[in-house]
């Protein structure tokens, strides 16, 4: 028994006698639902731009695009296949690691200091794994366990000094600025693909060992594994500096400061704002006005450039996901989700299909993770926490509508919007409540601190309300059979 939760909740509504399956009697959802929802979302962003600031609106748009891709990846796993992946955070971080590994220039001193040790360690590890795999196929029973145990202990004893020495050598190379091996020095856009590959590789490992577990256990296992991945990224300083962060990553779009000196850009801004500039009192005022306009315009231009890149990626992935869902493969996935036993009886390989979709979904999340690090321009392993990077993505998928790609995209935008705007909303509420209070009292001071956690409260509330009153989400999955 492994049905999608949201669907199951809806289907089993009502008391005895058992009603006809809800999917059959439910009237079809209006085709206007998705366009209207997306238009409303766009209007909300425009309102933010008009009343708050365009910088905030564009920032929400960019992270919304990234979140939408993450939600799509998770939707593949949960919505198509019913796999409870609570390790989204790990794949996001692996994508971020890819951004560092691909784009950072190599640190030659560190490589010459510890490169040989690292390669040797890698060879030992690979050799050990190969030996263990060989032993696993040749021997049986207690002897096998004993030999594997001896191999692991012996391998660790050999590996530890070599690896430790290499790591110490690398981390002592200019620790304030580098102290890690650096990367390949390639354009950072490549990392979006590499991030997907990294995430897919780790997902394959996780899936191989954990996918046999049923939903609750799978959730706990993936949550645990994601914490292990983050712990490794935080503490292995030789790899990506750990909690010391890698900052100043290269960008796929121009820098604001360069744009402000580029003739064509200055020209465009001047022409675009000709009337305002002509109204300036004198040449000095005109110069000052133009400078401010250039600053604003360059910042907006950079954000729009990111938005353009991200939109292209989103559209490509969306097209692939929609096609996959509508293909015979997608139909098979839904069949497996809705009734594993029946699908298995039809000759479908459940384990292999689950592994396949787990890897694919994780790869999409990895791509989004690399894009996020690209957007931030820095990789900060210390900031990954399950609330923000795993459970928030879950809220996006559930609220948007699990099993529907457009729903996941909408959920990504909407929930990111709420997540960002909940804090100013909380501050506004605090201001209203404490408007007539004496600013010296302890209560007033305390109230000023609670605006930040307000977003957690709103998230929980939104999730619970949607789960209860609209368990299929804002844009429900289309039920095709009749």
């Amino acid at each position, binding site marked *: *028994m492994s*049905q999608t939760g949201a669907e199951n909740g809806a289907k089993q509504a009502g008391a005895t006698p058992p009603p006809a399956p809800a999917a059959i009697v439910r009237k079809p959802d209006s085709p206007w639902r998705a366009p209207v929802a997306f238009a409303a979302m766009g209007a909300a962003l425009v309102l933010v731009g008009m009343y708050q600031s365009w910088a905030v609106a564009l920032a929400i748009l960019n992270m919304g695009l990234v979140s939408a891709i993450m939600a799509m990846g998770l939707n593949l796993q949960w919505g198509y296949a019913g796999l409870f992946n609570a390790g989204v955070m790990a794949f996001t971080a692996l994508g971020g690691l890819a951004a560092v590994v691909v784009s950072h220039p190599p640190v030659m001193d560190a490589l010459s200091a510890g490169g040989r040790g690292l390669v040797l360690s890698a060879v030992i590890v690979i050799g050990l794994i190969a030996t263990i795999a060989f032993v696993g196929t040749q021997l049986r029973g207690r002897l096998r366990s004993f030999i594997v145990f001896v191999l692991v202990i012996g391998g660790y004893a050999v590996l530890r000094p070599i690896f430790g020495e290499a790591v110490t050598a690398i981390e002592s190379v200019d620790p304030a600025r580098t102290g890690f091996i650096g990367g390949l020095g390639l354009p950072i856009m490549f990392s979006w693909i590499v991030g997907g590959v990294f995430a897919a590789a780790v997902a394959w490992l996780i899936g191989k060992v954990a996918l046999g577990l049923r939903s609750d256990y799978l959730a706990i296992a993936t949550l645990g594994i994601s914490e292990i991945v983050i712990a*490794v990224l935080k503490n292995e300083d030789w790899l990506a500096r750990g909690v010391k962060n890698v900052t100043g990553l290269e960008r796929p779009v121009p820098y604001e400061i360069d744009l402000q000196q580029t003739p064509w850009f200055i020209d465009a801004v001047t022409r675009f704002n000709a009337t305002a500039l002509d109204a300036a009192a004198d040449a000095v005022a005109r110069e000052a006005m133009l400078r401010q306009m250039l600053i604003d315009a360059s910042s907006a231009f950079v954000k729009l450039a990111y938005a353009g890149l991200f939109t292209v990626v989103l559209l490509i992935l969306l097209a692939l996901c929609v096609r996959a869902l509508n293909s015979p493969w997608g139909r098979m996935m839904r069949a497996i989700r809705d009734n594993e036993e029946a699908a298995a009886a039809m000759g479908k390989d459940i384990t292999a299909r689950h592994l396949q979709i787990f890897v694919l979904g994780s790869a999409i999340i990895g791509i989004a993770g690399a894009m996020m690090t690209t957007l931030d321009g820095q990789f900060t392993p210390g900031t990954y926490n399950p*609330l923000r990077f795993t459970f928030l993505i879950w*809220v996006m998928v559930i609220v948007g509508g699990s099993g529907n790609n457009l729903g996941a995209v909408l959920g990504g935008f909407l929930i990111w919007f709420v997540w960002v705007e909940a804090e100013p909303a909380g501050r506004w509420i605090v201001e209203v409540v404490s408007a007539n209070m004496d600013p010296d009292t302890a209560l007033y001071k305390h109230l000023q601190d609670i605006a*930040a956690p307000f*977003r957690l409260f709103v998230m929980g509330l939104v999730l619970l309300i949607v*789960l209860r009153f609209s368990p299929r989400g804002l844009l429900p999955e289309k039920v095709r059979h009749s």
Partner: protein
Amino acid sequence: MPETTEILNALVLMTNFVFVPALAYGSQLALGALGVTLVFGILRFANFAHGDLMAFGATITILITWALQAAGVSLGPLPTALLAMVPAIVVTAIVAIGIDKAVFGFYRKRKAAPVVLVIASVGVMFMLSAIVRFIMGTEERRFSDGTRFVVRALDFKKWSGLDEGLAIQTTQVITVVVTLIVVAALFWFLNRTRTGKAMRAFSDNEDLALLSGINPDRIVMVTWVIAAALATIAGSLYGLDKSFSPFTYLQLLLPIFASAIVGGIGHPVGAVVGGYVVAFSEVMLTYAYKRFATYLLPEDLAPSHLMQLLSTDYKFAVSFIILVVVLLIRPTGIFRGKVL
């Protein structure tokens, strides 16, 4: 052969840095894991909100502690929080029952898949963690008062004449004693009282229990009261021992799940054993045995490096590794809990 004093020094060293801290931490995990395992055994879902329920219980304890301290009430050498826990349990239990009525009860009545309840518990987790931050802010708080140490390192050195000191904090002793009492009381309740037996019957086979005339609503309510009590005690003891900050309780959730699963989820004895297994592995795998070995080995064999299996940074990761290994090798846990 090392001399007797050397051996004694080594033993005291291990007691001070491994045994005592692991015992206290293990007790806190055991209490948390008991709550998770009870909810799992009877309500049949993994409650992701348990960590934040602990934080909420600890928050109420702290508020009442402050009120008591302001009123001049004190337990002398013992921390005031011990007294404050009693009303805090009542408040937390009421809140837990309220959450069940508002959220979980709805899905239970519809017989929704367990995974829906897990997702609902994620929503509850978000809201509870926000409420805790509303009340307490985000900074770290200490609320223990009374005597800090039962045994001081210096006094111990003077008394025994050894090189190694032994320090035992009051909170560590209290943690272990309270855990013993609570676990004993819980087992007595589950094995000897009518309600406890009804709960075990319900957990074992729901339909049979219903046929025997057991009132499910009452069982659910009692389960939440016990879970809330365990969460409040575990959360307050952890806060007393370390310090209170809202985000640590989400980090505790995984070691707690690990403890419950290692012991066999749905199995109370397993939860207690699992708590200690996880705590001792965490401490022992990340402890540097250099000094310990220096005492025991002859001088020319003394180790030059730290003799640490894993760096201290991986302390939390140890419990996740145990969790994953147990899930993969023996998902039913040591005591053969329920198989999912």
